[in-house]
């Protein structure tokens, strides 16, 4: 059975992201099984599921950090064509550096902790070829301001910042080049509730202002309900249900989704 969970949508346009029939095995562990997903321009797709369900693996695939055993991945962008899993290392790196932004659960994965916060943002611009110091500085400042990072700490290294601040630096780094796709892997995990709310507010504002297409992974249904337009529920490497956020939370069809929603409630 092909599990293409293209849930009903209010606006029908051509999807920006098309992931089809992705399989991934780590030895005897089947991390993803025939997973498919569509993400439309300007929408936020939430992926929920318990630990080990394959949601972060799928996100890493979308960031081209991993290659599946089978399956295809396309982005509907003017200068990008074909199955992205077949790109060579350099093309993958350049695509990720310029068109896809990612915020990791652990800021240590996404940031250079001893470099300045503005330097972390500037790094992304440098990889894309910017070589003017004043422009780098201005763009880094602008991205950090957009992610509501306090500009008086512009040059503080992330290691001296709180978890919430570190996530804002990651967010600024991810949006610095106006990516076509923003991937968020448990961006609020480990943060206290008030900081979580601030980060989620920033995400929502950015999404509304810039219409950035986002995929957010979380095991916290509250987070998904707050920011996502559509939800995909994963379990043991498979997509078990997908739909509009209200549909999933108010009328879950699959037993596992019902269990998740009720556990949350």
């Amino acid at each position: 059975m092909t599990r293409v969970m293209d849930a009903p949508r209010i606006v029908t346009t051509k999807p920006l992201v098309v992931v089809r029939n992705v399989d991934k095995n780590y030895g005897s562990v089947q991390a993803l099984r025939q997973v498919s997903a569509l993400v439309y321009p300007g929408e936020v797709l939430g992926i929920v599921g318990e630990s080990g369900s394959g949601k972060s693996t799928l996100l890493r695939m979308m960031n081209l950090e991993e290659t599946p055993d089978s399956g295809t991945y396309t982005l509907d962008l003017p200068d990008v064509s074909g199955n992205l899993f077949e790109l060579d290392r350099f093309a993958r790196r350049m695509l990720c550096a310029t068109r896809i932004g990612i915020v990791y659960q652990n800021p240590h994965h996404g940031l250079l902790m001893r470099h300045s916060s503005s330097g972390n943002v500037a790094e992304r611009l440098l990889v894309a070829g910017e070589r003017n110091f004043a422009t780098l500085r201005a763009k880094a400042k602008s991205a950090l301001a957009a992610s509501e990072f306090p500009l008086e700490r512009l040059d503080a290294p992330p290691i001296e910042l709180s978890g919430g601040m570190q996530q804002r630096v990651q967010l600024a780094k991810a949006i610095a080049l106006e990516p076509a796709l923003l991937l968020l892997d448990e961006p609020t995990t480990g943060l206290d509730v008030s900081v979580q709310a601030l980060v989620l507010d920033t995400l929502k504002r950015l999404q509304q202002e810039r219409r950035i297409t986002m995929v957010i992974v979380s095991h916290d249904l509250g987070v998904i309900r707050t920011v996502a337009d559509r939800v995909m529920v994963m379990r043991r490497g498979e997509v078990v249900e997908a739909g509009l956020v209200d549909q999933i939370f108010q009328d879950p069809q699959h037993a596992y989704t019902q269990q998740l929603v009720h556990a949350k409630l």
Partner: protein
Amino acid sequence: MSLKSLTKPWQPMSYGFLDASAKRELRRKMLKSVAVPGCQMPYASREVPMARGWGTGGLQVSLTLLNPRLRVKVIDQGADDSVNAASIRRFLALVSGAPVTLDTLGADLIQSRHRIPEEIMREDQILVLQVPNPEPLRSVQPNMSIARQMHADADYGRMWLQLYEQIVRSGRVMQGAGYPSLVNGRHVMTPSPIPRWDVPKLNMAKHLSILSAGREKRIFAVPPFTRVEPLVFDDVPYRVEDHGGLTCSRSTAKGFFMNEIPQVDGSSTYEVSDSSYGVKTIQNREGDDVEFGETWYKDGEMTQ
């Protein structure tokens, strides 16, 4: 047929200390490094009678290139008379019979630790630079496998991040030695810990420069007439050390790279770092007939 007839007469060591296969490998790697300027070539660094990190890379290259007709000069941070320079010079002469010199103009092969002589080198001269750390990406990418991929992809954005951080923290580029430089528009190399003053001397130079790291087992080269461009931001120009206005307290040479000598009263005096040039200036002042070559700098400004 006796065993004696099949073997060579006993010798204490091969000519030039290294055995023929080691020299063959080094020659091949030198040719490769000349063919791809700035690209690091791995080689099997041999044991030499000196601790690794004391110039074994440069020594192996010099030993491979030596022949009895080549005149050798060895400098250590500009000085011909330091213990390290004197020891290496004597060793090279001992194992090869090559004549030695202190004069840049008279040398065919110059092995140097961290300086390029002030007098312009000619097409027929070879400069061998000792390199402690050949990997310019090490400070921004500790994983050497990924660093090699970055070289392959010419992915050098992070090198500018280093400069960005220095400007943000200190208001200016603080990279004093080993300034990362783009060779022939393709590979970023560390030009060994030569001061910023010396980096422009490599750009379109007439001589061949071979840089070798014995501990790290890497050789790279800047062939003659090759572009060597220090990495800079568009709006932050490259600056050499501000030594143009300093005068050597011993030789009165002016406008060259100086060593600072702190004084008891807290002030400083300066001596020209290239000791051979300083000695020639003193000899000239005392009326000796001394031949000076053209210098890269005049009154602190690059002449070429």
